[in-house]
């Protein structure tokens, strides 16, 4: 009986004592896998460093050039030049998130806690399918369908809520405004936020949900008590992932927006701020020399914005770690 209990790996011949002879062949798998995992971890750092180095080296002519030279060639000083684009990037992304997050959380919650199981699964598939639509298609849809269709809404907003600075100004004749771009961006970031939130909501501990229900919580109160607090870090992570996508999205914005270089919070006019990614895409084909450097340096700014956004997200998630659902 006791012999049967020896593990098959160690039953061959005499068992090697600790530190003697060749290591157990079974451990080789361990070492290989550890090496592979570590290599993958290092690889991602190397790629990131290379991208940063590329941006820095290729962009530096524009960053460190004599301002007089830049101005004489008609490019303008770098920081004043890039600032409106940086603003446009962040502004469009924030607008997109304001539109997308409530809807995404709502859909995720419906799938995880409200819908009958027969409906939940197809709905999940549809959401994932939305993520598979290429951004060019979203761009076409935004400029050809959404923009003209949204124009009456914009006119109504301007006429009735024009006293709010966001909706002031003359309404764009084409409907191709930053608001339209934000709606398109929102549609694009919706699937990723939704599916991440759904996963987190589904993982909310059954035990805590039952605790809330047993105290006499309604379904919504149960969600507030036992699901949201647990899912909070996950929701933030999902939002940040969506924000990352919205910040970097190029094609849809390029196609919807005929942006200019200005800083304005007005959503409905034809004078719209452009984003960094769209500016690079629009100008890169004809750029050479210093102009190329300038665009690459703009890419560096985008890179930094994304980095800062992610660091803020990390900080928010870790701030109340003691109260998190992890303990």
């Amino acid at each position: 009986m006791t012999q049967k209990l020896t593990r098959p790996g160690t039953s061959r011949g005499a068992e090697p004592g600790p530190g003697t002879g060749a290591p157990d062949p079974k451990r080789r798998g361990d070492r290989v896998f550890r090496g592979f995992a570590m290599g993958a971890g290092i690889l991602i750092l190397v790629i990131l460093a290379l991208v940063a180095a590329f941006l820095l080296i290729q962009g530096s002519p524009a960053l460190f050039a004599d301002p007089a030279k830049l101005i004489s060639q008609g490019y303008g000083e770098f920081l004043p030049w890039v600032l409106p684009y940086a603003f446009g990037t962040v502004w469009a992304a924030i607008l997109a998130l304001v539109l997308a997050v409530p809807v995404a959380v709502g859909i995720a919650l419906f799938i995880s806690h409200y819908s009958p199981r027969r409906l939940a699964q197809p709905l999940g598939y549809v959401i994932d399918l939305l993520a598979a639509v290429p951004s060019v298609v979203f761009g076409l849809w935004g400029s050809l369908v959404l923009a003209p269709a949204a124009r009456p809404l914009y006119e109504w907003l301007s006429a009735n809520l024009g006293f709010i600075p966001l909706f002031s100004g003359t309404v764009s004749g084409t409907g191709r405004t930053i608001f339209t771009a934000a709606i398109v961006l929102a549609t694009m970031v919706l699937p990723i936020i939704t599916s991440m939130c759904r996963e987190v909501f589904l993982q909310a501990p059954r035990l805590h949900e039952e605790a809330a229900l047993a105290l006499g919580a309604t379904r919504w109160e149960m969600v507030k008590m036992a699901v949201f607090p647990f899912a909070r870090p996950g929701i933030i992570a999902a939002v940040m992932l969506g924000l990352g996508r919205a910040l970097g999205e190029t094609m849809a914005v390029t196609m919807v927006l005929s942006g200019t270089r200005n800083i304005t919070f007005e959503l409905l006019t034809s004078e719209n701020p452009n984003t960094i990614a769209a500016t690079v895409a629009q100008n890169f084909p004809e750029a050479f020399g210093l102009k190329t450097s300038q665009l690459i340096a703009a890419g560096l700014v985008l890179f930094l914005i994304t980095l800062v956004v992610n660091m803020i997200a990390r900080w928010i998630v870790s701030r109340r770690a003691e109260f998190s659902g992890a303990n």
Partner: protein
Amino acid sequence: MSKRIETTDLNVYYSDFRAVEDVTITIQPRAITAFIGPSGCGKSTFLRTLNRMHEVIPGARVEGEVLLDGENLYGAGVDPVRVRRQVGMVFQRPNPFPTMSIRENVLAGIKLNFSRMPKGEQDDLVERSLRSANLWEEVKNRLGLPGSGLSGGQQQRRCIARAIAMAPAVLLMDEPCSALDPISTLAIEDLMSELKEKYTIVIVTHNMQQAARVSDTTAFFNIAGTGSPGRLIESGPTDKIFSTPDVQATEDYISGRFG
């Protein structure tokens, strides 16, 4: 405050599977009633019908009547949310809300009901509930902290405090000590004996010594075999069930011959 529970011919289903069959039992107020029986005999399932927690599982349903002082919990138009505010529950594993402080946990149920309780009253209630749960002295200096450092037994008493803060008529306990060490178990048992002065207490336990120690009435559940529904075999005063039960199966179970 304390109320009597009567069920008549209660059948409990998970979809098409009948888990518990024809349970008729009366549970006395101001007393501890223990449900004992082998695993899978339906005692926890039956317990969860007493505060309508059974039906939160998809496909689960109940047929029959549960009367709480004569009022049918399954009557037409009875809101399960209201039922659960009257019938408190303590679970197998301590499940305090991890994102809330000790104080917020105790007040969690109250916040649902009477959202506008003045702060002074809240403080009183927190102290009263924690004292009733024999936890006040141990946590009074860290009410604002999440309490993740509390032991399992303290966590479970915190959950009891949370349940009794609602001033329920009945307190259901589903194997409340199964995840606790003997010292913590003893603390919970002492607490139960104090609480029965005010509440109807129903406890499910796998520990027969525990049932013998704390309960006034014992009900024995059993199943004929896997796939067949659980039944109430007999119930009566704990002394009698543990000395001279009427049914042979009860005696076999009590004396450790199976289960």
